[in-house]
């Protein structure tokens, strides 16, 4: 990022809110948000409430970066998801299962009825 864009950034700090469109126009996509990604790419990301284990990551869609290359922005998004997904894909540690079992057995009448199939 050169001096010119530095000025842009500092100038934008002066605003209370930077609109997405302006940001993209000036800097390119600083960061690819999950909801902006194409569907196949999205499957490799974290989808909250998705019970499926995350699918294998498909190669990142290049369409946005070709339109306005911004290596730094891409790098930020990739690093962030790397940290997040790395943990997301791990099995649930036994300590948490044990904790919940203990909490459940300590509760004489659970707050709500048990889910179907739950012992």
């Amino acid at each position, binding site marked *: 990022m050169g001096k010119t864009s530095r000025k842009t950034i500092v100038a934008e700090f002066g605003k209370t809110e930077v609109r997405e469109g302006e940001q993209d126009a000036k800097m390119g996509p600083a960061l690819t948000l999950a909801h902006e990604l194409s569907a196949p790419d999205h499957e490799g990301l974290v989808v909250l*409430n998705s019970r499926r284990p995350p699918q294998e990551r498909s190669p990142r869609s290049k369409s946005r970066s070709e339109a306005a290359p911004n290596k730094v922005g891409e790098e930020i998004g990739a690093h962030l998801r790397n*940290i997040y997904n790395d943990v997301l894909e791990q099995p649930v540690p036994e300590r948490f299962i044990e904790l919940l079992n203990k909490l459940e057995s300590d509760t004489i009448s659970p707050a*709500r009825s048990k889910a179907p199939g739950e012992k």
Partner: protein
Amino acid sequence: VPASAAAKAGGKGSKADLVAAIPNLRAFAVSLCGNADRADDLVQETLVKAWSSLASFTEGTNLTAWLFTILRNIHYSEYRKRRRETPDPDGLIAARLVSLPAQNAHMDFLDFRAALQKLPLDQREALILVAASGLSYEEAAAICNCAPGTMKSRVNRARNRLADVLSLSSGADIGDAYFVGEPTALPRAGND
């Protein structure tokens, strides 16, 4: 992720639902505090608190978002405690940022993790919720108890700051080294 999609898989708040939410909770916690052991302690505290507050969970709403709210509130209260013990932790952090070796060819993954943890907490959690968890600005704002506009501005500031650090460490603009960390010093506090 459209808000509707996130809200769909609500869950009843049963034990099985809590177990299913744990991977997301752990991922959020690690990203937020940057330490795996600390993260799992946070998750543990969150689960205990959630279990005792299940009655306040509205069935059919987003259980993961509800759990995120609990986790970040616990993290915040402990962060404040730490702050009182360590004067100006963010200032010290900013000072270290400036000394980041600018001649490095590339910022590697560890550098990024460090830079992420040096972001102010509100900006860091905003960025994680929106860019890594895939929540909408509205959902993230509800978790952090702020306006969606505030959430957007936090995400933008976090991006800009990380972009500064990334471009600095790639040697793209060594002359800008002294600017790193400056935004905190600007009188912006009330603007949030």
